[in-house]
């Protein structure tokens, strides 16, 4: 069941992409990071990190401020290139799997001067999604009214964060990368986002979430990765799944 859903999702690809670009095998792990280092000037932000993520699991990447979490996530998202090592998404290079990855950064990644739907329509076009239905559904899923004409600049912090999540999930990515989605968010929005993530995981998507404070994640996560001073310290299963 899960596999057929995966294959179906993979067939949906942006028309601008070349035909040869992607047919990720369902066997390949969603994320495979091998000996990855990122060096800025004289400091190594990430040092020789290796791990593999299994499909349909919720991973939380923890670590203190400046441990290199965001840098690592950006490399997995294909925004930064590793100085050494290799990142593979479903067995492919990051630039070939973009249509199947959702990325939500610490910053909202939205245009302040556009309304919620106008933002989504523009980004939808980038993924080849032109139907308003899909986009409206994404907005409803994060608890926003698609009819909202207010510009994003006038949104509250929590609304912005939720719209940002809608932007990251409207194309039903099989791999979702999130950077501190709960910072500066009101409790109501937090629970809503947490529920949505739990649903996505149950539907068979892989989630990798970066945070420096556990909070709600203690209950959601299947596995924890801990990063300290650029090095991977541990990869452990949470009690919830062990039980």
């Amino acid at each position, binding site marked *: 069941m899960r596999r057929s859903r995966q294959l179906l999702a993979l067939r949906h*690809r*942006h*028309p*601008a*992409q070349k035909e040869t670009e992607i047919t990720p095998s369902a066997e390949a792990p969603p994320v495979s990071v091998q000996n990855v280092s990122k060096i800025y000037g004289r400091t190594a932000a990430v040092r020789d990190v290796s791990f593999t993520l299994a499909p349909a699991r919720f991973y939380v990447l923890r670590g203190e401020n400046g441990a290199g979490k965001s840098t690592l996530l950006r490399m997995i*998202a*294909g*925004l*930064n*290139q590793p100085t050494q090592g290799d990142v593979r998404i479903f067995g492919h290079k990051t630039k070939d799997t*973009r*249509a199947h*990855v959702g*990325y939500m*950064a610490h*910053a*909202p*990644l*939205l*245009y*302040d*001067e*556009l309304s919620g739907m*106008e933002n989504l329509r*523009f*980004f939808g*076009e*980038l*993924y*080849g999604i032109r139907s308003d239905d899909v986009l409206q559904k994404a907005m409803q899923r994060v608890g926003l009214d698609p009819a909202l004409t207010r*510009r994003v600049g006038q949104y509250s912090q929590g609304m912005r964060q939720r719209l940002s999540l809608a*932007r990251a999930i409207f194309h039903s990515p099989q791999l979702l990368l999130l950077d501190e989605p709960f910072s500066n968010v009101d409790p109501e929005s937090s629970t809503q986002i947490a529920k949505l993530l739990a649903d996505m995981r149950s539907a068979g998507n892989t989630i990798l979430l970066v945070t420096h404070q556990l909070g709600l994640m203690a209950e959601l996560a299947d596995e924890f990765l801990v990063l300290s001073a650029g090095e991977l310290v541990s990869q452990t299963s949470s009690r919830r799944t062990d039980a």
Partner: protein
Amino acid sequence: MTNSLLRLIKANLAKDLRLEWRSRDVFNAMLFFALLVVVIFSFAFEPTTEESRRLAGGLFWVAFLFSTIVALNQSWARELRNGVLDAYRVSPAPAEALLLGKVVSNFIFVALLECLMVPLFILFYNLSSAGSIWQLAVILFLGTWALVINGTFFAAMSIRTRNRELMLPLLLLPVSIPAVTSMVGATTAVLTGDGSPLPQMKLLAVYCVVFTAASFALFDMVLNAE
């Protein structure tokens, strides 16, 4: 493939125009700047009709070169606010669509500005052209494209550097010298009626083609450079 690329360019263009319509931060800055340059030049020179025919080509393009620089920095600055550029970069859409969308929107802004400034120029400098107006229109089109294509490309480059605002003129002006030389030459030739502007217009056209191609070929690399 081409159809989809066109759609993407259109989406980028529509987005840029809408953003500009709502904020007007590019156009206002550019308009005011160009106005100031024209006024200051006319104070500084007080030319007679004959002189102004010879000078106008140079003044006109220098005014636009500098106002374009003001505009270009702004047009990329809005992609950096909230980190929106990252959202584009994680999407499967080709980088070229972003460049071309922005080039066309910047071209529209500068062309609009020219439509407003040309009458003002004629007024202030008491201009009348000795040559064909159509040739002037073609020169205006080619010259604006030459400024905007390189300007948009190098602005994308300069936003990646530490001193953004300063870097753009440093990169753009040297590369644009041949284009500026030929557009000023061609404009002056038309205005004064001395000699034919055609060789310079041809050179300008080739310049546009070559540098548009180069910008296209290298933009993906520049956008993802780190």
